């Protein structure tokens, strides 16, 4: 069933994040996903635990350079370390990972930044400098619709607030919807709550070599 496939796609995305191979926009998406989804955090914790075990178990120690420890200790003396926790409260207004991309010190995207993108739909472009994906924050008024459309490339939609439905499913805050290239759907926001989503979309099929070339240009 469709839902199953999407779950798998999310799992693979989390795995790629854990292994450090994501594009910057995808990484932004996953860090936002982790801040709004408990199941995603649990899965990531599993992946990070596996990583730690593999590091202990499979990585035969390689002698550090002679002066490495003393050089770290010198630097350690210069910094007292952090005092305050960074865990904060996950969730909306904006996950912390998003804030630095979208002004507003209070974590809200300033009203003036929202642009018209259809009847009762507003968007803010999220500028990710080194990515071939287009990243948008989308706000849909209660009951607003996005007509059926086809995706030229892969698209991820993370529901940050409210709820959203396509032909098959309802997606609540914390859900991540993955659309493969070539698939179609229409969307409607929750009639009462509307929704705010982060979408990351590749507008053309990406081959690794193309991605490499784009990345090399910066």
């Amino acid at each position: 069933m469709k839902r199953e496939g999407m779950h798998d796609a999310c799992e693979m995305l989390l795995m790629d994040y854990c292994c450090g191979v994501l594009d910057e926009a995808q990484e932004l998406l996953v860090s936002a996903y982790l801040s709004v989804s408990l199941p995603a955090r649990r899965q990531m914790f599993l992946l990070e635990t596996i990583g730690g075990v593999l590091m202990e178990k499979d990585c035969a120690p390689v002698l550090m350079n002679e002066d490495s420890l003393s050089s770290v200790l010198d630097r350690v003396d210069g910094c007292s370390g952090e005092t305050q926790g960074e865990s904060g409260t996950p969730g909306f207004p904006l996950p912390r990972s998003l804030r630095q991309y979208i002004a507003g010190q209070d974590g809200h995207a300033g009203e003036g930044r929202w642009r018209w993108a259809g009847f009762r739909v507003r968007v803010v472009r999220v500028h990710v400098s080194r990515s071939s994906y287009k990243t948008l924050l989308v706000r849909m008024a209660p009951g607003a619709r996005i007509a059926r459309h086809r995706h030229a490339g892969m698209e991820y939609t993370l529901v940050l607030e409210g709820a959203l439905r396509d032909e098959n499913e309802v997606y609540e805050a914390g859900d991540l919807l993955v659309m493969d290239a070539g698939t179609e759907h229409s969307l409607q926001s929750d009639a009462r709550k509307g929704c705010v989503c982060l979408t990351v979309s590749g507008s053309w099929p990406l081959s690794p070599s193309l991605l490499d070339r784009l990345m090399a240009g910066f």
Partner: protein
Amino acid sequence: MSYSEESREAGTTFEDLLAAVGKSRDRDAFIRLFEYFAPRIKSFMMKGGMTPDAADDLAQEAMLTVWQKAVQYDPRKAAASTWIFTIARNRKVDVLRKQSRQGPYVADFPAVEDTDQRPDEYVNHKDGIRAMVHAIDSLPPEQAGLIRKAYFEEKSHSDIAAEENLPLGTVKSRIRLALEKLRRSMGEDRA
């Protein structure tokens, strides 16, 4: 495999050491952590293709971050190895992205929060980690191989598929099967 047993059996765990660094800026505890983890972080990075010097630098940076963030380490939430792996992975991503300072904010601690953990609940990481080690060792070789490739060689699933000459779907389903087994080994049947 000198899998951290001596130190754990000796009564002081890495979790204790890390907590001591966080609580009282304990240099001796930090040195012991450095001596154990830095050479393993270095090794991990070299498996991913870094030069020995770059890997050494990265291990230093990661350990410096360990010092800086240790105050946030909560031994109830994560094993030391989980926590240090997460930091090392983040530093690696930073390095690969070097020029651009504006990467997304990424939390430097493992992902789970104490949603269903009572504060007084003792978490036995040692057993959990040991179960995980055993589970990894019992994976069928074709699954274990793909998991290691993904972690050590920083390859996406499609890269792995191309390299192994396997259909992408096969790579994904093997990885998924492996993860499912490992998840069960941790007793995480709650998701």
